[in-house]
């Protein structure tokens, strides 16, 4: 069959314009409620558990995970499910270990929590650096994905698409702060869950509501049961140990992503924070079960040749879901789904940019460079710095998106998770749970995790062979010094080990004395903001 993907659909333009108008309207409304730091960073802590659960799910269900996982299942089969399971199991960990301390101890960023009873300046500087790096890597992934998808779905030039996404997201964040960003996320989450549900219903209806019939057709179309079986694919991991390493970074990366952690400050207390994790876990699980069904639906119904034919620019088989939508729902449904994918990208980059801007204004400007006690005036100044940082990050995201045009999106997302799991998560966990943790330990742990995860990835086959030696004759390629794709098993363990070692070698009396006060606040929220 022929596909109309890549042509401009009137219907998708209409849906998309509708989304932009509504979200700009919300931004206009939110702008009047976005003046103080608490309003700008945390929507004045007025978001309910259900709303925040949807917004968390919105932050997590990026276009990369919707189109990417459906595509991965469609072409790689079971490997797609490995990612879904790994991304999901981080949420219970966030619930049991991180959510309450985070909400009770912090103000606007996760660095607040790491630095709570330690020396503020060095810890904030290190945590801000690792937050900014995590956010920028994730942002590049989303921007490159955005440009390629919009080009494929709407037929717009890559550059124009990126500039449009950049401009809209800057508008949401600088005028509407966290309140607008939250509502953009909520609307997008509802649209995405709705669109994926309809597509799943169409798939299951086609197969008489039977997964067995669906799997039978997958076997028939692809010529064997290979897609239904786990197989160690080189695109995912190079060895069994690498599978374990990947699993670690998927699970603990969630507990170290700055834009996810920041959402816990938008709810009034620990009770609503727990509810939001519960709702988020439910929505995200439901979503992964949908993408799994959609992926196998595409494997069964889209001709394998077509799946590979539209594959471009590092976006391996991202078109599986749109192609399936067109087959089952015709081009109006394809138009709707394309608009939803665009909306998804916008919402996710807005959330990321806000998290990055907060690391710059709250952690670096307010926490490291400003010497005086905070006042109302300095709060206004801080918001102004955050807005400037938003514009800088927005422009940077567009520029980096253009220069990393050909990078593999799934790889960049994996890198962000590896850095988050290695640099952010260990320091956060030890600061909350371990009395003898010190300032030096925190800085050393963050820097070890950050530097080691980045270096190991540069030395891995993904960068060393596929990027540095792209196009080199296969017989002349020098093998990667680090033979695995995921560094987390080493970089995360090293971050824990170095943090513990440095803290034991030179104890910090003040940090230990502050622990009891912190402990009480962790559990009861007494003194929480």
């Amino acid at each position, binding site marked *: 069959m022929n596909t109309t993907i890549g042509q401009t659909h009137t219907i998708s333009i209409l849906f998309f314009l509708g989304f932009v108008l509504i979200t700009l309207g919300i931004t206009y409304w939110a702008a009047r409620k976005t003046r103080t730091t608490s309003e700008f960073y945390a929507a004045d802590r007025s978001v309910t558990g259900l709303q925040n659960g949807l917004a968390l799910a919105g932050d997590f269900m990026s276009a990369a995970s919707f189109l990417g996982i459906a595509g991965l299942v469609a072409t790689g089969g079971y490997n797609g*499910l490995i990612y879904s*399971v790994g991304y999901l199991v981080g*949420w219970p960990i966030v619930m049991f270990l991180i959510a309450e301390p985070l909400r009770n101890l912090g103000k606007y960023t996760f660095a607040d929590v790491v630095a709570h009873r330690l020396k503020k300046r060095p810890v904030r500087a290190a945590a801000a650096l690792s937050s900014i790096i995590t956010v920028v890597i994730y942002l590049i992934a989303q921007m490159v994905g955005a440009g390629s998808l919009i080009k494929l779905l709407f037929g717009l030039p890559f550059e124009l698409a990126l500039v449009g996404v950049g401009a809209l997201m800057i508008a949401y964040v600088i005028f509407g702060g966290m309140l607008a960003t939250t509502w953009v996320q909520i609307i997008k989450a509802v649209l995405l869950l709705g669109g994926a549900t309809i597509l799943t219903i169409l798939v299951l209806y086609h197969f008489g509501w039977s997964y067995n019939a669906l*799997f039978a057709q997958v076997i028939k179309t692809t010529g064997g*049961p290979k897609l239904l079986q786990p197989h160690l694919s080189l695109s995912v991991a190079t060895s069994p140990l690498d599978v374990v390493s990947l*699993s670690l970074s998927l699970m603990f990366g969630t507990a170290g992503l700055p834009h996810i952690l920041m959402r816990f400050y938008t709810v009034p207390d620990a*009770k609503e924070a727990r*509810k939001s994790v519960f709702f988020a876990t439910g929505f995200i699980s439901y979503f992964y079960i949908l993408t799994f069904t959609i992926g196998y639906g595409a494997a069964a119904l889209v001709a394998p040749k077509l799946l590979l034919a539209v594959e471009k620019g590092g976006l391996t088989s991202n078109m599986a879901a749109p192609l399936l939508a067109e087959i089952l729902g015709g081009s109006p449904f394809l138009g709707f789904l394309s608009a939803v994918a665009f909306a998804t990208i916008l919402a996710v980059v807005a959330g990321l940019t806000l998290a990055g801007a907060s690391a710059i204004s709250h952690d670096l400007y307010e926490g490291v460079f400003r010497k005086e006690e905070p006042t109302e005036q300095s709060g206004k100044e801080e918001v102004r710095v955050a807005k400037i940082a938003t514009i800088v990050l927005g422009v940077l995201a567009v520029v980096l998106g253009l220069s990393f045009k050909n990078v593999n999106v799934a790889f960049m997302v994996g890198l962000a998770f590896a850095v988050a799991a290695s640099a952010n998560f260990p320091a956060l966990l030890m600061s909350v749970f371990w009395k003898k943790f010190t300032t030096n330990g925190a800085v050393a742990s963050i820097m070890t995790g950050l530097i080691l995860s980045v270096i190991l990835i540069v030395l891995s086959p993904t960068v060393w062979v596929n990027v540095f030696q792209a196009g080199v004759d296969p017989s002349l390629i020098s093998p990667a010094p680090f033979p695995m794709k995921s560094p987390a098993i080493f970089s995360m363990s090293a971050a824990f080990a170095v943090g513990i070692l440095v803290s034991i070698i030179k104890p910090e009396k003040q940090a230990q004395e502050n622990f009891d*006060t912190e402990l009480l606040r962790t559990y009861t929220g007494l003194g929480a903001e």
Partner: protein
Amino acid sequence: MSQPPQKKVVEKFLHDPEFLKVISRRNAIAYSLTVIMLFCYFVFVLLLAYDPALLARPTGNSTLGIPLGIGVIIIACILTGIYVFWANKYYDAQLKELKARLGDEAAKEADHE
């Protein structure tokens, strides 16, 4: 926005047997759920890494690995559900009671001085 708790209040809470009992029960529950989650997930991951043939065993047109993978996702939901139900229904109520009682006592002691 409330002030950070004073040293006296902190001591009061951390020496109160009832409070210590409540938070150690909370930790016992949260940590057991964490261990159950880690156990289920890593059994799945280790099978995947070291015995993929077992997960590839056919069941109908599907394979054993598919219900197991979906099963881990569902277990994660159930565990978070158990915790949020328990914490929001019982733990928060107990904490609220303790905060009221110990807060009052601390305020009275402060008046005496």
